[in-house]
């Protein structure tokens, strides 16, 4: 049996807004799950229901074999990690870090060890006797994350904990979170709208949109084999290209590829790295922008089939207005249904 199970979990607000529409999710002990989706997709509401901060209007939440759906937050033994924790200005860094461990039943010795461990992981050991106001913002942020991670409850629930930090600090603290999670094996649900963050942190990504789960899978499953057009477009930077196609007698225009689908319209999906410049290729486009990104560049093209993006080595730049021919890797073309966007092949 899974460690955490959401069964037909639902949240409908009094004003009628159906934030979460009956989702099912099974999480194994020690898994790092990222709930990924755009604003309003229901990811934060789901997290808050697991925390007990929102009441589920239907469905069940099981944690470690027990039904916790109606338990108060304090009875669930879960730790919620928000974006910024206020530190107590009148307490030393050590006392701030010790604070969440009070009333946990841990012996004083164990509490001290936990504080020393987390301080070492965050590189703030030399600051333990200082006071928050004496420290620069970066150290305060590290310590506030430490306060969230010093306790090891049954679940860590994280709601965009790195929200608006600079990329430098984000990356650093992301590594701390992942290392702490691996070291202590605390089962974790992590909410973000940032697909790159999801790809680097997750054992499994749960893609949500409009209150439903679109797909749950490992980062590479979700990226290489998306279950629908929403996931295909949302995961990846930039997302998967979509090309409107038409199947006639087992051949798909405009790429001229054989497909095992009945005649009719289809949406083809191709990742930017599976498009290649080729003057003899089946597609032609005009350069809108050559977007240099250092290690690679994204070439944005206007084609008869719409806007396409090709990922290329940094090499020589294209100029706006240049004409470019393209071909695709046939092995990496996916087919989706035009109506509901579900994956066909």
């Amino acid at each position, binding site marked *: 049996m899974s460690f955490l199970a959401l069964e037909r979990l639902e949240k409908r607000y009094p004003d009628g807004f159906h934030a979460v529409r009956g989702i099912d999710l099974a999480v194994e002990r020690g898994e790092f799950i990222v709930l990924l989706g755009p604003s309003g997709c229901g990811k934060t509401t789901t997290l808050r229901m697991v925390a007990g901060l929102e009441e589920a209007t239907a469905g069940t939440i099981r944690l470690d074999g027990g039904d916790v759906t109606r338990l108060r937050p304090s009875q669930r033994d879960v730790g919620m990690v928000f974006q910024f924790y206020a530190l107590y200005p009148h307490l030393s860094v050590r006392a701030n870090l010790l604070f969440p461990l009070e009333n946990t039943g841990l012996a004083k010795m164990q509490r001290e060890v936990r504080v020393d461990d987390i301080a070492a992981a965050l590189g703030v050991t030399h600051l333990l006797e200082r006071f928050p106001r004496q420290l620069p913002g970066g150290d305060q942020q590290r310590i506030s994350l430490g306060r969230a991670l010093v306790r090891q409850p049954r679940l860590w629930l994280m709601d965009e904990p790195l929200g608006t930090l600079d990329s430098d600090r984000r990356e650093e603290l992301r590594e701390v979170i992942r290392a702490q999670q691996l070291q202590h094996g605390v089962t974790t649900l992590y909410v973000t709208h940032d697909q790159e963050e999801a790809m680097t942190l997750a054992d499994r990504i749960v893609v949500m949109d409009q209150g439903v789960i679109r797909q749950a899978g*490992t980062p590479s499953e979700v*990226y290489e084999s998306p279950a629908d057009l929403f996931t295909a477009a*949302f995961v*990846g*930077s930039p997302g998967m290209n979509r090309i409107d196609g038409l199947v006639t007698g087992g051949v798909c225009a405009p790429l001229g590829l054989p497909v095992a689908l009945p005649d009719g319209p289809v949406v083809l999906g191709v990742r930017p790295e599976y498009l290649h410049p080729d003057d003899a290729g089946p597609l032609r486009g005009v350069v809108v922008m050559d977007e240099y*990104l250092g290690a690679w560049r994204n070439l944005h093209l206007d084609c008869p089939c719409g806007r396409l993006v090709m990922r290329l080595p940094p090499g020589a730049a294209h100029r706006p207005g240049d004409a470019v021919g393209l071909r695709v890797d046939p092995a990496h073309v996916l087919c989706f249904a035009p109506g509901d966007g579900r994956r066909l092949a």
Partner: protein
Amino acid sequence: MSAALAIRGLTKRFGAVQALTGVDLDLAADELLVLLGPTGAGKTTLLRCIAGLEAPDAGSITLGGVDAVGLSPAQRDVALVFQNFSLYPDWTVGENIAFPLRAPGRAMGADAIRERVAWAARMLRLTDYLDRPASRLSGGQMQRVAIGRAIVRRPRLFLMDEPLTNLDAKLRESLRVELAVLRRELKTPMLYVTHDQAEALSMGDRVAVLDGGRILQQGEPRAVYERPVSPAVARLVGLPRINLLPAEDAGGGWTAGGVAIVPRAAGDPAGRCLLGIRPEDLRLAGGSAPAEVQLVEHLGAALLVTLRWAGMQVQALVGKDAAVRRGDTVHPAADPGRTHRWSAAD
């Protein structure tokens, strides 16, 4: 043609904090210059000095060849777009965009205003939303309206202060391209402030890297990325971040942690150096010293491999087809021509 903006020796202090020190900056008439720096670098202060919202302690600001230091914000004719877009929520998109044209002293006719608003909406793909109240827009649409309010005036210069920072990552990625293409069509110069290095590389005709109130380097994105003048610039530009290894001259070659990394080249510093290797320039085979693979992360189009090498943790960005797993032993190698060497004192 005179530069759209020329700044010389700009200095600003707030009490004990030296916010800007001797900043020199030029913006050509048809250019998008990105000012890149971490929080607290002085980016916003510089922008506010240009807009006339802050008076510099020393230095000059010239707009289109005219000394701007004595001019009021309105006289400078620059349009400022902030991170926090403040629209009138009950007004329609059209009314919000038209607002700057209705300012007293502008005396624009109703037809002229309507025409200008329609043009701005077309540029920003907001035509279908002109009659919708601002409160019923998505975050990305709201930011487009805020940008519409800036372009509708046809100012001589755009100043953008992290306009995309509060939006979802996915939206930021598409809007940065939209905004750069729009600016090219408008042919109006733009100074764009951000802490996001991808935005800087992607959007800028040129990038100026600011830290601690000083410009560390300015140049085309490729030049700044490929030839960073200091380890500080190399760290601020490029994600995944550059590997920096303290190295020693072992008679003809640079070694780090006892491992030979690359041969010496003409112009290298003497004795010790800081060696920079971009993750995409580190191959996983061909080197002499072994490294242990600690982590393999799937970034979508590529794999990011974390290695223990030469006693240090380094990262390599490799293709998805690379057969590499956690626990493997590999022999990393770097192309000497693609490494960076700075004297240890930098």
